[in-house]
């Protein structure tokens, strides 16, 4: 019933197209790199200043000068290039990154995204998330459909402070896939064992057909 984290990541991986430069957020989006379809070459950007992010290092490969945007140690690949953070966000804002796959706290039916702060709670900062959603060619959100209280994270309007307004193109949850279209959200597909009605029932936003 419904998709687990890895199935969500695998579904998100089907969004990738050959030759694309892509930015993956932390959490489930990171798992997407495990499911890149055969024959599809994508280059992962790490927004601190790297294109061509490789896997985590072995003990021998560990290098304190080589970390990703989540501050984890990583490795480089044959096509890797390094650059400074101004250049890195230049390519993000300039639309050179074809797609970002990100987690979210809330998404609205207009494609508004909230994923950086909860008022009254510890605020860590938006990091590069606002730049990414404003700049990249396509924003795909991967998240659980509901929060731990069972409430829909897809809403008519976000209740949390926004990361970006009208920035999300597609939402992939454990229950299915929705596109942000004119007038609301459109169901693209449902997860294994989930009916259209169940998906609609779990979604507190306008579904259009």
């Amino acid at each position: 019933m419904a998709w687990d984290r890895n199935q969500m990541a695998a579904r998100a991986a089907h969004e990738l197209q050959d030759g694309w430069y892509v930015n993956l957020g932390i959490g489930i989006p990171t798992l997407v790199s495990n499911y890149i379809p055969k024959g599809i070459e994508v280059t992962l950007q790490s927004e601190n200043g790297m294109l061509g992010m490789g896997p985590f290092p072995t003990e021998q490969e560990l290098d304190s000068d080589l970390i990703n945007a989540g501050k984890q140690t990583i490795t480089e690949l044959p096509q890797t290039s390094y650059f400074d953070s101004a250049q890195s966000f230049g390519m993000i804002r300039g639309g050179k990154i074809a797609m970002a796959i990100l987690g979210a706290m809330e998404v609205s039916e207009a494609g508004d995204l909230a994923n950086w702060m909860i008022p009254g709670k510890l605020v860590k900062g938006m990091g590069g998330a606002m730049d990414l959603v404003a700049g990249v060619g396509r924003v795909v959100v991967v998240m659980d459909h509901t929060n731990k209280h069972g409430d829909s994270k897809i809403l008519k309007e976000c209740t949390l402070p926004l990361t970006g307004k009208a920035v999300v193109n597609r939402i992939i949850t454990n229950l299915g896939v929705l596109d942000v279209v004119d007038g609301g959200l459109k169901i693209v597909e449902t997860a294994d064992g989930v009916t259209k009605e169940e998906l609609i029932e779990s979604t507190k936003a306008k579904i259009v057909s």
Partner: protein
Amino acid sequence: MKKVFNNAKEALSGLLKDDIFIAAGGFGLCGIPELLLNAIKESKVKNLTFASNNAGVDDFGIGILLQTKQVRKMISSYVGENAEFMRQYLSGELELEFNPQGTLAERMRAGGSGIPAFYTKTGVGTIIADGKEHKDFDGETYIMEKGLVADLSIVKAWKADETGNLVFRKTARNFNPPAAMCGKVCVAEVEEIVPTGSLDPDLIHLPGIYVHRLIQGDHEKRIEQRTLREVK
């Protein structure tokens, strides 16, 4: 005009005062000017404003200046790793200005490049846009962000020659070039100073014109999240 100094304390001599605005390179704990931060701690100057993407951890990076309460204000994009930071912020001792990461990097690059302001889509429709000038270009709305000019920049590079030409290594480059550009004075610490002429002129990441003083030293280069893959 000798740029090479013996140590961080000497390199900062005459540059540190209470209330100054310092831009620091580094991302997380990667590529941070650790020796210069230590010397700033020892100088005991206070009421500092820092533009730095992160605030270090409690006992490394800018975190050490939070412990000693030398910092009045941070301009950062992400400060999640620092408990003392959060305590001071929540208690109102520390002022915090969140900048989106790309906006912060571009503000530094702009300030160092004679650009007092630029427009960006980043943050439009969010609290970051509050109070900022909005302007439409080709039917899209952008906000104006201002260039940052710091009294002092502190950066960390891998190698330098004696004229201050800098070379960085891997993702330790990050904010260091834009931070260096935006300082009225820039002090750089490196792992190795090589004789002038031994760096390939085509492969210099930051020309020495941006670097006024220079030290060589040993770096801890602490790893924040040691993440390994399993070897089968």
